[in-house]
């Protein structure tokens, strides 16, 4: 079985073969993998190097916690991987990215307006929650197409706040 695992834009090809063992990017590895019967911990020995981790499944990826660092891993088999490459990721079907509220809170400010050109990482909403002002940022370059809230509004978790179209450079 051949998988493609993606971590932070880095892809690894991992083959699990009953006969040939485990190959990572084509190179064989000595691997001993254990999952403890309780507590959620796994132990990996790879060529005698020891790595302990917590591995949990999320809706569309795996989360792996190693020495304080949380890795988000996409695991796809070859077929899913090829299909996936044909689609744009993270967008709704009409090419609009939605900035949704990650938690309940109150909108402090929306420092963009419809029609603004924004860059990935640019502040688009300031949300007050958990006693802090939190900055929500654009997930991609694009043009602000919708603003669904204004300062002072109470919002729920997952409520859409701002829409950003990716297609400004084609217009």
């Amino acid at each position, binding site marked *: 079985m051949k998988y493609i695992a993606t971590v932070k834009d880095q892809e690894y090809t991992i083959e699990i073969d009953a006969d040939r063992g485990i190959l990572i990017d084509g190179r064989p590895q000595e*691997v001993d993998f254990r999952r403890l019967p309780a507590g959620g911990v796994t132990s990996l020995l790879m060529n005698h190097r020891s790595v302990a981790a917590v591995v*949990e499944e999320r809706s569309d990826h795996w989360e792996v916690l190693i020495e304080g660092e949380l890795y988000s891993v996409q695991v796809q088999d070859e077929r899913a991987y090829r299909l996936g490459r044909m689609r744009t990721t993270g967008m709704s079907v009409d090419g609009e990215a939605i900035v949704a509220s990650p938690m309940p809170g109150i909108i402090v400010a929306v420092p963009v307006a419809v029609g603004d050109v924004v860059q990935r990482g640019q502040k688009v909403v300031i949300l007050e929650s958990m006693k802090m002002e939190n900055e929500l940022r654009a997930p991609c370059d694009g043009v602000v197409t919708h603003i669904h809230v204004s300062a002072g509004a109470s919002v729920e978790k997952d409520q859409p706040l701002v829409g950003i179209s990716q297609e400004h450079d084609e217009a």
Partner: protein
Amino acid sequence: MLRDDGLLVQKFDKLLIANRGEIAMRILRAARELGIATVAVYSDADRNAPHVRFADEAYHIGPPAARDSYLVMDRIIDVAQRSGAGAIHPGYGFLAEREKFAQACADAGIVFVGPPARAIGIMGDKLMARATVMAAGVPVVPGTTPGQTDAEMSAAAREMGFPVLVKAAAGGGGKGMRPVSSAAGLADAFASARREAKAAFGDDTVYIEKMIIEARHIEIQLLADSHGNTIYLGERECSLQRRHQKLIEEAPSFVVDDDLRRRMGEVAVAAARAVNYVNAGTIEFLVDRDKNFYFLEMNTRVQVEHPVTELVTGIDIVQEQLRIARGRRLRLRQEDVVINGWAIECRINAEDPYNSYLPSTGVITSVQLPTGPGVRVDTGVFEGNEISPYYDSMISKLICYGETRGEAVLRMRRALEEYRIMGVKTNIPFHQHMMDSHRFLSGQFDTKFVEDRFSMDDRDTAHALEAALLATLAAHEQNQRAAQLVAPGARDTSNWKWYSRWERLRR
């Protein structure tokens, strides 16, 4: 005994803790160790929180929002009376610095574990606090009194030299505060600070203060009993902040020597005496690069970062709070307080350091606490607890002790690696990155360091390959199981081992 200043001091055998999270746990433990029975209060969001389980009794006080539960004074005093609690410890935040609440406790015949209401009132008003401590000879940051005209403030600013800060008299948490680098910016700053202060506090009084460059935030921990004895327990270095929220604290401070410690300590004692302070309190100072120090404010309560002082002095500050509230004399004199070794505290928050420190909510699916020599965890979160959006995002505090600062840092690195929290994102990588930073290691930082000169972008993470492999093995295992219809019960004992053909041949 009800003192002249309205403070009720007497023995009690049952304590209500009017708080939640790690500080509620901290106080519960101190009370248990002193043989005092405990009463917890909880909102709808906290029925499953650990402070409910650890207390001897627990009472529901309302819906999740703090204003409907933890901030409702009458309801908390009512629980104290129904449960027979003779005292209330407010922790920090919530009702801890409400003059009215301290007074209401005394009026109801309940010991408030804290200072007299009047001391809270004075120290809670920035301008009154400033005037009071100045009269006691405490140095303050040069600045104006409130209620001056724009013209008067502009003249004062020119005299003390730019940059200056325009601040709201009723302010806090950075709200209504504006840095101004030249006379040209003053008018705008007055207007916008007033607007923000009016909106946030209903009071648009502003004043100006000289802005201290390369300032460090260093504070002195005090203990004062009800018999007139006040001592200082050395300093804490709290310069590592982000948006006025402290992130890492240590004791002692890299820049404080014995002489400066004694001078700051004596000034802090004088400031406390100026308001007839009783119980634990902290004087916050700004220290400039020439080691001049200026009174910033007094926190009239136990602080988040009190454990670093406990580790280097061996004194249990929360137990001392309870002893003082019961009317006992301090067991220690100033000369008994000795600083040994070094302690560092990292605040572990549910937030994503790689994404603007955005808070992270959810259910904690797995926790493994670091332990072993020199490691202390003050936590209010265990497996199965939910991090809800209703309260602040601090999950726990990780505190490490070492014989030297270097050893404390190395131990903190080790403890951060061991600490596993799954279910929400945490700022553990932020702390790891800080512990690796040369600026931190060499003690060269000020209150602007985190915001202005620290970035997670240059962090190298070493285990991407292993993470990829582990996730793939877990996914493969799941696929195999789905295909073969293995009974779910068999799931938990999977142990796989692969040797490559190459490896087998070599043997």
